Every structure is written in C-alpha cells, then in structure tokens.
C-alpha cells in the first residue's frame, strides 16, 4: 500500500467512527485539534486500523499519534514487511 492508499483507508475509518468527511483527513491534520476526534473515538479508530492494516498499536503508542501523518507513518513502519 502506498502512503496515499493508507491515508485514504484511514480516512474512511475516521469517517465511519467519528463522522468526519474523509477528504478532511489529511496528513497534516491533528486528530484532536483539527478533526475533533475525542480520545474515545481515537481508541475506536485505532482498533479498526489494527484490523484493517494488520498492525498492533499499543495503548502507550496511541498518545504519540497526534496527526494523521503520525498514524500513517506508524502503520507504514509496522505493517508486516
């Protein structure tokens, strides 16, 4: 998957969980400040992303994923190589 494909798939998840229009979910956007994804929705996004991308995102890691770009690059790094 390319970076853009991961971003687009993640955007779909954010849309499903939090009702944010998928086109707003861009790499430079902060989940909490720009997209208004609260901490519980973030948990739901993370669980859905784990399933979709086959990665594990531990609770301790979630707080480091501030922007969509953070999440996309985490997924890129940790997908089964």
């Amino acid at each position, binding site marked *: 998957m390319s970076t853009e494909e991961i971003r687009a798939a993640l955007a779909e998840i954010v849309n499903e969980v939090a009702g944010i229009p998928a086109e707003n979910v861009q790499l430079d956007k902060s989940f909490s400040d720009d997209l208004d994804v*609260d*901490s*519980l929705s*973030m*948990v*739901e996004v*993370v*669980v859905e992303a784990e399933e979709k991308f086959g990665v594990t995102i531990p*609770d301790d890691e*979630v707080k480091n994923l501030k922007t969509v770009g953070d999440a996309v690059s985490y997924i890129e790094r940790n997908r089964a190589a």
Partner: protein
Amino acid sequence: MTALRTETGAAHAAILGVGAYRPRRVVPNAEVVDAIDSSDEWIQQRSGIKTRRFAEDDETVVSMSVDASRDALAAAGIDARQIDCVIVATVSHLLQTPSAATAIAYELGTDQAAAFDISAACAGFCHGVALANDMIRAGSAGYALVIGVERLSDITDPTDRGTAFIFADGAGAVVVGPSETPGIGPVVWGSDGEHYDHIRTPDWRDILASGEKKMPCLSMKGNEVFRWASYGMAKVAQQALDRAGITADELDCFVPHQANNRITDAMARSLKLPDTVKIARDIIDAGNTSAASVPMALQRMIDDGDAKSGDTALLIAFGAGLAYAAQVVVVP
C-alpha cells in the same frame, strides 16, 4: 467407607422478581462540571450521562439494598422468610468486615439466611446471578436474593476528570428461585489480572503513610478500559448468546453494565444486534452505578414496558479486576 448423602435441587432456576432503589437526590451535570473544568456537552458526548443520583446520609448501602430487595420480593410473590441465601455485590460497603449481606438479611427478616458479599466490582451482579442459579439447581438454596448496591459517591474524587462525572449511587435486586423451564442460561465469565491496576482504589496503608485524611477513591485508565470493554466484551456477550442457544435475532433485550453509553453502542455494533432488540440506557439519568447498574437497568426496562415477561435478556457486566460475567436470562 460410608457414602455421604447428597441433595439435588430444582431442575431449572429463573429470576422471579426484580427491584431497584434510586436515591432521592438528582445531580445534573451542571453540579459536577466546575470541579473538573468540563461542560454538560462534554460529559454527554463522552458518556451519555445527563444526570445521576447521589445517596444522602440515610440512604446507606444496607438501607438501599433492603428497599430494592423488598420490591424484588413483592414482584416475585416471595416472603423474606423463604430466602435461604443473600448474595451482595458491592465495592462501596466501607467496612472490611462484617459483610453488608448479613445486615441486609437481618433487616429483611429472613430466617437466618446464609449471607455474604462478593468482590467482583462492576461485574459482581452477574457473578451473583451465576452463583444463585447454581445454588438453586444444586439444592443449597430454595430461593436466593442477589443484590447489586453502590454508594460510589463516597469513593469518587470530585476533582478527577476521568471518573467524577461517571460514578453514582443506587441498588438493584433480584429473587432467584426454582422454575419449570430454564430461566438463566450458562454463565460465561473470567478475569484478566494482567490489568489489575486499570480500575482500583489505593491501598489504605499508602493513604495513612501520606498523612492525608481522604477516602480511598477510585481511579481508572479510561481509554484502556474503553478499548477492553468495547471490543473484548462483545466477544464474551456473543459467547453467552451461543451457550444459551440464542441468536441475536431471537434476543429481545440487551442489558449491559451501564458503564458508558459509547461502550454500549460499540458492543451493540459488534454483536450486530437488530433494531428489534431493546437496549438498556439507564445510564443517561442513573450514571454508572457499578454492581447495581444491571438490575437497576433491568427494572427500568420492565417498568417502561421495554422488557416483557418471557422476553430473553442478555446480561453482561465487566469492570475492575479486570473481571467479567455474562448470561442470557428470561425476564420474569
């Protein structure tokens, strides 16, 4: 060697009556927001809670339990003297010993019924129903009372943003007794002690060492618990349905522990419950009453006509420990 004589009980057991006690004082979000620098909207969005009830001084763990139990006994048409065992699930009876259960059994006027408390936190009520079901069928009790009761306001820090708006007070009770048809399905229960610290109170000795005069208040790792409950517990609920031989389409009511409306939503989605299943939402004006929430929510659904006699209801409760239990029951 002489063989001991043993006894057996009823072929089946069922919940025969449900009762609840809701404390008098209604506490709206407006009353808790200042201490946690929050807002009514923020609380509703994160939990669904609009109001909760806090017990006043005379609404004790024992008195609330007695009131809820009298309603359950009346609904079941059973006299207190017929009760052989009183099981109380609570984390807020603030005596290490004796239990709340013996005082409740005495106040109710039981004939020296066996009585004890169980410590399984928010999951305690469903543990109690499982025990009572087995007691009735094994012959160790003719009728049993299972009570969930909390005064969490005593052990909640009003300045803790993670818990102050969630926890509340109340009591619920059910009478469990013999039945001609199965009224309580197999229990699916377990524990996950790896996360012992996710929801807990501090050690009294640490409080004494700190020199501060304060209650041992609950703390919770909210996001971790949310993840465990929303996703892990849906699997447990599904197993309880499977073990009882019920499909989601055949289910009438879903009565999860009223932890957080968003956990309820996530579980209902995972279970793919059809729109025909009535879902308990007592949390909106009762808050999270830990061990009391399932019987309180069930009583509410019966009173509102959402749960009718003969309906199947999936109960699931989960919390500190971590501990969980679920079973399908037939509404009395």
